[in-house]
C-alpha cells in the first residue's frame, strides 16, 4: 500500500506536558474505510493523540499526513474534513437539537445547510424532538446527537473519543451498528474505547499505555503478539485455589469470571510447572485461547514495569 493511500499516516508523534511525556514516539497507519480501535488505560495518552491529529494540541515531535495533508502545518484544512467527537458532551445544552446542528453546519459553511440539518435530524430520528434542548437528552441520545453533529459537514475521517462511555448496552450496540454502516459507505474511524467487546468490533487495534504504543494489528494478531497462555479452571472452591496460585512463578494473572478462573502467563512452561500440582484437584482445567482483555492487562502490567 502506498503511503498516500492511508487516511492517517503519522510517525514519531510526541507530546510533552512539562517534563512528562504523555505521547511518546507513536506511529499509526489507518486505511480508508477502516474502523481503527485505539485502546489503553485511563491517562495513557489516547485523547492527547486524537487532539494532536485534529489540531487542538501542538505536537512536540512527529511528522506525517492526515487525509493527505501535513498534520502539523495544515491543521486548519484538516479541521474542515475531520469530525471530532469529544469524550465529554460538548455541544450547547441550552440550545435545541436543531439549533446545535444548525450552528455547526453554519461554522462549516455548508452550502445546503437547511437540507443537511433536515437530513441529519431524520437520520437521528429526532425530527419531532428537534426543539428539545440538548441538555435534557439522556446520555444515549446526547451521544447520538454528538455523532450526528460530527457528521453534518460530511467529513472523511471521524475521531471518536470514548464515544460510548456511560451509555447503556443497547444504545452502545445500536451505535456500533451505525458506525459499521458508515464505514461501509467509505468513512474512516479512529475510536478510543475501554470496552473489549467494542475493541473486537474494530477492524484493527492499537494499544497504548503510558504514552507508548505496545501492540497493534487485528484482534487475532494482537492476541498472538501478546504470547499469553491461559488456563480456564471451573469447579468448586475457586476462590481458595486462586489464593494459592496467585504469586507463583510464571503466574501473571489470576482473574475470576463468576464460575470460572482464568490463570495466564507469558512463559507457558513456567506457568505449567507452577500450576501442575493443583491440576489433580476437584476442578476441571482447560487450556484456552487468551482473551483480548487478558492480553491488554498483561501488556499494561509489563508497561508499568518498563516505563514507570
Amino acid at each position, binding site marked *: 500500500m502506498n503511503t498516500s493511500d492511508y487516511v492517517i499516516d503519522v510517525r514519531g508523534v510526541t507530546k510533552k506536558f512539562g517534563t512528562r511525556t504523555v505521547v511518546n514516539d507513536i506511529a499509526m497507519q489507518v486505511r480508508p474505510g477502516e474502523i481503527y480501535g485505539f485502546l489503553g488505560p485511563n491517562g495513557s495518552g489516547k485523547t492527547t493523540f486524537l487532539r494532536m491529529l485534529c489540531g*487542538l494540541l*501542538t505536537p512536540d515531535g512527529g511528522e506525517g499526513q492526515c487525509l493527505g495533508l501535513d498534520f502539523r502545518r495544515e491543521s486548519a484544512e484538516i479541521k474542515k474534513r*475531520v469530525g471530532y467527537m469529544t469524550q465529554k458532551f460538548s455541544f450547547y445544552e441550552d440550545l435545541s437539537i436543531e439549533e446545535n446542528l444548525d*450552528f455547526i453546519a453554519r*461554522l*462549516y459553511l455548508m452550502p445546503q445547510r437547511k437540507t443537511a440539518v433536515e437530513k441529519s435530524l431524520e437520520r437521528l430520528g429526532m425530527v419531532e424532538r428537534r426543539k428539545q434542548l440538548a441538555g435534557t437528552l439522556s446520555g444515549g441520545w446526547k451521544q447520538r446527537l454528538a455523532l450526528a453533529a460530527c457528521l453534518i459537514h460530511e467529513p472523511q475521517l471521524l475521531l471518536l473519543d470514548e464515544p460510548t462511555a456511560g451509555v447503556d448496552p443497547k444504545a452502545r450496540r445500536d451505535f456500533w451498528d451505525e458506525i459499521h454502516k458508515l464505514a461501509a459507505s467509505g468513512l474512516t474511524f479512529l475510536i478510543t474505547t475501554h470496552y473489549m467487546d467494542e475493541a473486537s468490533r474494530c477492524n484493527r487495534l492499537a494499544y497504548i499505555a503510558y504514552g507508548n504504543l505496545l501492540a497493534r494489528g487485528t484482534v487475532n494478531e494482537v492476541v498472538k503478539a501478546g504470547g499469553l497462555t491461559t488456563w480456564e479452571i471451573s469447579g468448586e472452591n475457586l476462590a481458595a485455589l486462586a489464593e494459592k496460585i496467585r504469586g507463583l512463578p510464571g503466574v501473571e494473572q489470576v482473574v475470576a469470571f463468576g464460575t470460572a478462573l482464568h490463570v495466564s502467563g507469558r512463559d507457558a512452561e513456567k506457568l505449567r510447572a507452577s500450576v501442575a500440582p493443583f491440576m489433580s484437584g476437584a476442578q476441571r482445567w482447560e487450556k484456552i485461547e487468551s482473551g483480548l482483555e487478558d492480553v491488554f492487562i498483561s501488556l499494561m502490567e509489563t508497561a508499568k514495569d518498563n516505563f514507570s
Partner: protein
Amino acid sequence: MNFNFQRLFAIVLKEFIQMRRDRLTFGMMIGIPMIQLILFGYAINSNPKHLPTAVYAADNSVFSRTLIWGLRNSSYFDITREAHSVAEINTWLAEGKVQFAITVPVDFSRKLLRGEKPDLLLEADATDPSAVGFAQAAVSQLATTVINRDLTGPLAKLQSSAPPFNIISHQHYNPESISQYNIVPGLMGVMLTMTMIMITGLAITRERERGTMENLLSTPVHPGEVIVGKIIPYIMVGYVQVILVLLAAKFLFNVPMLGSVPLLFLLVLLFIVANLAVGITFSTVAKNQLQAVQMAFFFFLPSLLLSGYMFPFRGMPGWAQHIGECLPLTHFLRVVRGILLKGNGLAETLPDLWPIALFLTVVLAIGIKRYRQTLD
C-alpha cells in the same frame, strides 16, 4: 484560516439564542441598571425635603419671627431646634443633628428697615451636597416672599423681587458640590462598565468550563469570529441599558440634556465596545468563571472609585488621577456629562475619545493574542 462573515453570524446567532435562554443573566442585564438607577438615582438624588434645621434668632423681631414661621411652613425645612448661641449651632452641625442652621443677626430688622440689606447666614452640612442645593434655593425664594408680606404701608417701598437682605451661605465639609445631575449620566457609564465586563467575562470561560470550547476549536472557526461574534450581541444589550438610563434621566430625574443625544448614542458605542473587549480579554485569561467574575470586580472597583463618579476627580491625589486617566470610565463620564450638561459637541469630546479608542485597541489586541486556538 480567514475571517468569514457567515461563521461570524453563526456565533452571533448562537449567542443570542443562549442569551434568551439564560433567564438569570438576562434578568441581571436589565435588573442591574434598574436597581442602580433606583439606589443611586433615587436614594441619593431625590429633591430632599423636611431637613432638620436649627434657627438662631439673635434678633427677636417681627421679621425674624415671620421668617422662621415661613421656613417652618415650607416643606424643605423642619425647624427642630432653636439655638441660643453660635457655639450650639456649630456643635449641632458637626454632630449631624441638623442639616441647616439659619442665623438671624442681631441688627437684622434694624438694617432691613433702613434698606441696608442685612445678612442672613445659612449654614449647611454639605457632606451630602445633593441634599443642600434645593433647600438653599428655597431659602432665598421663601425669604423674599415672606418678608415682603410684612413690608406693608410705609415700608412697602422696601418690597422688591430681589430679597431685601443678603443670604450668605456657607457649605461646610464639602466645598466641591456634586450636583445630582452628575450622578444619573455617570450612572450610565458605571452600569455599562459593570454589566458589560461581567457578562462577556463569562463568555469564553463558560465555553471552556462546559467543554464546548474543545468542540468549537475543532471546527474551522477563526478566533476573531468568536470574539467579535460574542461582542456584537452585547453591544445591543448595552444600548438597551443606555436607553433605559436616558429615559430615566429625562422623565424621572429631569436631567437636562443640552447636547445632542444622537451624538451621545454614537459615542457610547466606543465605550461599550471597550468594556466588552475588557471582558473578553479577562475571559481568555481566567481559568474558570469564578476567576472571570473576580477579575471583573478587580477592574470595576477602581473604575468606580477613581473615575470621578464617586469622588470629584480633581480632589484625588496625583497618582490616583493617573490611574483614573487610564480607565475608559473616567473619559466616558466626561463625555456624557459634557454632552448632556454642558451641551458639548464632537469637538469638545475628542480629547476624551482617543484615550478610550487607544484603550480599546490595546485590550482587543491582548484578547485576540491570548485567545488560544489550541488547548495547549
